[in-house]
């Protein structure tokens, strides 16, 4: 039994388990770039999704996602985990997306390529592509804050509370933004794409 206990303890010391985001941020704040790389690998997908869906442009989305991580690294020495790290990440990405939208030239809705699935027939792929374009155009027609609320809620799968924290507004304001966005989207997306 003593042997089992010793080997258990040894195992814990050798492989302590994955670090939490907050622990990685603390390490990154001391200059540990390997810890920062772990943060990037864990959260790049989500940062990319939000930026891509919001901006509708691959190059700008990559710029925003990269910039978000670099800003997070810059603030790592003074990072205090008052909330989940993911909330902080969403705040940074949201702010950058809104800044980019303020400065942005008119959107080129065709910029995002269609993602084809292998099992689709050509006709289905065409309809699918057209529907994608319709959705992107509808999103682009929304005011920035409504668009951001929609993207955080449906792509980020955040609750009202989490969306409010990311956008630094109240949950009630999130509810109003989503309600208005849905009303607009239901009109813009009312006509289905025919085969």
């Amino acid at each position, binding site marked *: 039994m003593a042997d089992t206990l010793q080997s258990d303890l040894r195992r814990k010391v050798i492989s302590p388990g994955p670090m939490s985001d907050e622990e990685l941020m603390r390490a990154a704040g001391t200059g540990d770039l390997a810890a920062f790389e772990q943060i990037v690998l864990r959260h*790049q997908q989500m940062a990319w999704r939000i930026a*891509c869906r919001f901006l509708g442009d691959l190059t700008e989305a990559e710029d925003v*996602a*990269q910039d978000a991580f670099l800003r997070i690294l810059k603030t790592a020495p003074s990072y205090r985990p008052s909330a989940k790290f993911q909330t902080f990440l969403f705040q940074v990405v949201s702010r950058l997306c809104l800044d980019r939208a303020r400065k942005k030239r008119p959107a080129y809705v065709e910029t995002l390529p269609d993602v084809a699935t292998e099992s689709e027939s050509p006709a289905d792929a065409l309809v699918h592509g057209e529907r994608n374009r319709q959705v992107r155009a509808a999103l682009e027609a929304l005011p920035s804050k409504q668009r951001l609320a929609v993207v955080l809620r*449906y*792509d980020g799968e955040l*609750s*009202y509370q989490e969306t409010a924290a990311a956008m630094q*507004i109240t949950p009630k304001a999130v509810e109003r933004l989503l309600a208005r966005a849905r009303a607009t989207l239901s009109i813009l997306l009312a006509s289905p794409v025919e085969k």
Partner: protein
Amino acid sequence: MRCVAVRKELNRFVDAELSPWMREDIERHLERCPDCRQALTQLQEVAGVFAGVDLPPVPDGFTARVMRQARAQMTEPRLVWWSAWNPLRWWRDETLAMRTAAASVVVAGLAVGLAMSGRAFRPSAGLRPATVASPVVQNLDFVGGVPAGSVEQTYLAWVADIPEKQP
């Protein structure tokens, strides 16, 4: 529940943001109200739209590019926080409540400052220039015999309101 009350909560119903008892009430209403069911269906269609719209994957080499810039950033001289702070950006990025609070503090500070400066510059009542007979001048006897046109004589004339002697 009445339709008006249900319609108000339908958005939160679709987003699963309602308490369990409220959700049950609305579900019971929806079972017998086709209009509200129709409204719900429209909302759910919009919510479901994004599920079918795929996004391209994260670009190849994304992490490598971020790390390259991160290493470059780490070797840059680090700015002290107050030199990196941009007040215009802060103003633009802050919430309306915070901006209102900051503006109120500045206005209040200016108002207090103006009120205090007004009192400071107002001459106190009863203050008169010293005359020859006043104790202030009497105690300045070491300058009583100063030559005309000298600095001391000019000073004495200034504080005691005595006409300056011409050299």
